[in-house]
Structures are given as structure tokens and as C-alpha cells.
């Protein structure tokens, strides 16, 4: 599915936009400080392919540590607090934890990419319940990766290989399913300002999801290189993005989060950067480049907004988490 699209992306990138990609260079960074924690390993506080992140209302950080088959919990500064999970398909075990969200009561929901299920834990990591199985029927999954929660404590899931979004109540009862498969060609995505918008409400491997204060659902439509915004009832509202390397464009959208002001933060996997958009989807700012220094990324796969407005980014290939404090000018 991706050979042609990635070749196209590379070609267009080289031919047309090598001079436009450095738009942010020379401009002030949108963050005032960055803290880094974690390194590759299997001990507490270390990671082996951290994949997803969420932050609760108290500022505690939860990380899905994919290849260590566990969830780790940290305080807001990155100090290790606890962990749970071992490899397996039993209750409370994980094969590949791939998505996280915390509800208003502090319960932690964890998606498992390989086991096609959601597990619910209390804030101490005690198993509460599970739901889901491999399949295409409502309530089943094919590699769930993104989780978010709305104002009614409903869990919204990016069901990636089923190219759809599903909604459940806090007990795992299926409520709604939206979306189907529709890839957009690289050519049309690149020149989407010339074409009528297509495939509204349809997806090409939706990887992450974020619900805003108005219960609008923001879907990271990863291989369509765009973000789609749906109403709480799943109706398409608008989209933004398209393939490219300049501001407002993406090369595989991954993590997505919305802050209290409605600004949307999107991790741009191949461009190794984070982009900021306003609530209408207009591009505001960006930061990041390839590398392993603070502020650089090696494949950001997820991000979260903390209660203080800090941005927590999973730097997957560097096996670490970066915490960015945004500049006052951006706030």
C-alpha cells in the first residue's frame, strides 16, 4: 500500500520543496524549555519502543512501553512511580500496548495492538475489565492504536486496520462505529488545494484520536496525511493537511492532542516534528527535526497535553519522552 505513496512523497519532496522545508528555521522556537527522560532498556524508567502516552488531571504521565509489554507511570517531571503488566494474553498482561487514556475517575484504558482488546485498570494498575477481540464486527478490533475520552466518559478508539472509529461506554459497551477505507493518492493529497475534498469521514489507517472540549473528534488519518475533525456524533466537519514537508503538511500523521484553548498538536512522524493548529485547523507553528538531541526526534508516535499546558512527546526511536513547556508567545 505504501510503496507507491512513499516513492511519490520522496520524489515530490526532492523536486519541489527542498527549499520550502526549512520554513521554521531561523524563527523562534514555540517552546521555552525541554526536559527529557528515559533511555533504551528494560529497567524501571527505561523504555523499549515507547509508543503511546497520556497525562491525567493531576499531571501524572502514563507511557505504553510497547516492547517491554507494560505501562509505566511517572510524575509530571518524569520521576518513575510504578509499572504494571507482563508479556502475555492473560488479564492485566500485554503483548503490545499501543494506546492509552485516563478518564475523569482516574481509570486507565490501554489498547493492545496484537491482542485487539482494551483493558481498563484503576490508577494503581489493578485490572478492572477488558473488551474486544480480533474482527470487523462492531466492538471488535484490528490493531487499535488510539484512545481518547469525551465529556460523557465515552471511550473513542482509532481502530487502525479496520479504518474506522468506534465509541464505547466506560464498561466497554459498544455505542457507535464510523468510517471505512479510502486511501487518497499522493498526487491528490499533494495538490489537494486544486481538487475537491474527497473521502470525507473515511480513513487510511487512522492511528490516533483526540476529543476536544466540545466533544469534537480529531482523527489522525495517518496514511492520508491529514487530520479529520468529526462531530461527537461522527459527522464529518472539516479536515486539514495533505502530504508535504512545509508548515501545515504531513508525512504520516501520528500523535494528536487538543489543549484547553482548542489548539491542535499533531506529531508528524516522517518530518520528525510537532505542528500546532488553531481550532479551525489553520497552521500556527512547528518545532522539531531529526536527531537525538533535546528538541529533536526519531519518529514521534504520540503526544499529550498536560494540565499545565506542557506537551509530552513520545520519541519512539530514541526510546524517551520529551516534555516541552510552550513559550508565552504561543500561549
Amino acid at each position, binding site marked *: 500500500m505504501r*510503496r507507491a505513496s512513499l516513492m511519490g512523497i520522496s520524489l515530490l519532496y526532492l523536486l519541489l520543496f527542498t527549499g520550502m522545508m526549512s520554513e521554521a528555521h531561523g524563527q523562534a522556537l514555540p517552546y521555552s524549555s525541554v526536559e527529557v527522560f528515559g533511555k533504551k532498556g528494560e529497567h524501571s524508567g527505561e523504555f523499549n519502543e515507547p509508543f503511546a502516552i497520556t497525562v491525567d488531571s493531576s499531571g501524572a504521565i502514563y507511557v505504553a512501553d510497547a516492547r517491554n509489554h507494560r505501562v509505566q507511570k511517572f510524575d509530571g517531571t518524569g520521576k518513575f512511580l510504578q509499572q504494571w503488566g507482563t508479556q502475555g494474553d492473560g488479564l492485566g498482561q500485554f503483548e503490545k500496548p499501543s494506546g492509552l487514556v485516563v478518564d475523569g475517575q482516574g481509570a486507565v484504558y490501554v489498547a493492545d495492538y496484537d491482542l485487539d482488546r482494551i483493558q481498563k485498570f484503576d490508577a494503581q494498575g489493578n485490572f478492572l475489565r477488558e473488551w474486544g477481540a480480533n474482527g470487523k464486527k462492531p466492538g471488535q478490533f484490528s490493531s487499535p492504536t488510539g484512545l481518547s475520552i469525551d465529556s460523557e466518559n465515552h471511550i473513542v478508539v482509532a481502530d487502525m486496520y479496520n479504518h474506522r472509529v468506534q465509541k464505547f461506554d466506560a464498561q466497554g459497551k459498544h455505542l457507535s462505529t464510523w468510517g471505512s477505507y479510502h486511501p487518497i493518492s499522493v498526487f491528490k493529497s499533494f495538490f489537494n488545494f486544486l481538487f475537491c475534498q474527497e473521502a470525507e469521514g473515511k480513513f487510511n489507517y487512522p492511528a490516533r484520536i483526540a476529543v476536544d472540549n466540545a466533544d469534537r473528534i480529531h482523527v489522525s488519518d495517518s496514511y492520508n496525511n491529514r487530520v479529520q475533525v468529526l462531530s461527537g456524533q461522527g459527522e464529518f466537519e472539516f479536515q486539514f493537511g495533505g502530504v508535504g514537508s512545509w508548515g501545515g503538511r504531513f508525512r504520516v500523521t501520528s500523535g494528536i492532542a487538543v489543549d484547553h484553548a482548542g489548539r491542535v498538536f499533531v506529531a508528524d512522524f516522517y518530518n520528525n516534528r510537532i505542528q500546532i493548529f488553531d481550532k479551525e485547523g489553520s497552521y500556527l507553528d512547528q518545532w522539531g527535526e531529526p536527531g537525538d538531541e533535546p528538541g529533536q526526534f526519531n519518529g514521534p508516535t504520540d503526544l499529550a497535553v498536560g494540565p499545565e499546558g506542557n506537551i509530552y512527546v513520545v520519541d519512539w526511536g530514541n526510546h524517551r519522552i520529551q516534555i516541552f513547556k510552550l513559550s508565552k508567545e504561543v500561549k
Partner: protein
Amino acid sequence: MKVKMSSLFLAFIFIALTALPLNAEDSGEKITIKVEGLYCPFCAYGLEKQLKKLDGYKKVEINLKHGVAELQTQPGATVTDEAIQQAVEDAGFDSASIKRLQKESK
């Protein structure tokens, strides 16, 4: 003639005896699969998931830098190209881009 027959018999016995330990130590195949477009974990994990379902699967490692999956099979197991190809397709990749670069027994 008797000498030749006995030599052949002894050779047969020798081959049979030395072959047994080799079979016992067979560690299976190591198959390197080149998959175009294998660059990010969202899809790489999908390929890994499908390869794990193959009969004879023992271990798989994905190397994103080189765009390859290295599949280790169980001793004595045979995983066909067709089965691998199907797994790759199920993971959402182009089947025509698969290459079996290495196939060896230890």
C-alpha cells in the same frame, strides 16, 4: 565386490549416524523479507503481527532502517513464500515487493 558392498554399507551407517545430530540441532530457517514502505512502527507492528500468525513461526525482528523483517522459524518447520506473501498483504503492504534474500539452516 564384497569389499565394495561393505564399504557402501559402512558409509551409509556413517552418514546416518552423523546426520542425526544435525537434524536434532536444526534451528530452523532464517528468512529475510524485504518489504518496500516498511518505515514506521504503525505498519511495522502490523507486519510483525501477521508474521507471528504463521505456522512454524519462532521469532521475528523488524529492521526499519533497512526495511526488512527477519523471520526465524521453528526447527523442521517450513514456511512457504506464499504464506509469507499473504502475511505481508494482510499487513497492508504490496506483495510484489517481497524478496526472500536469505534462507539457511544452521
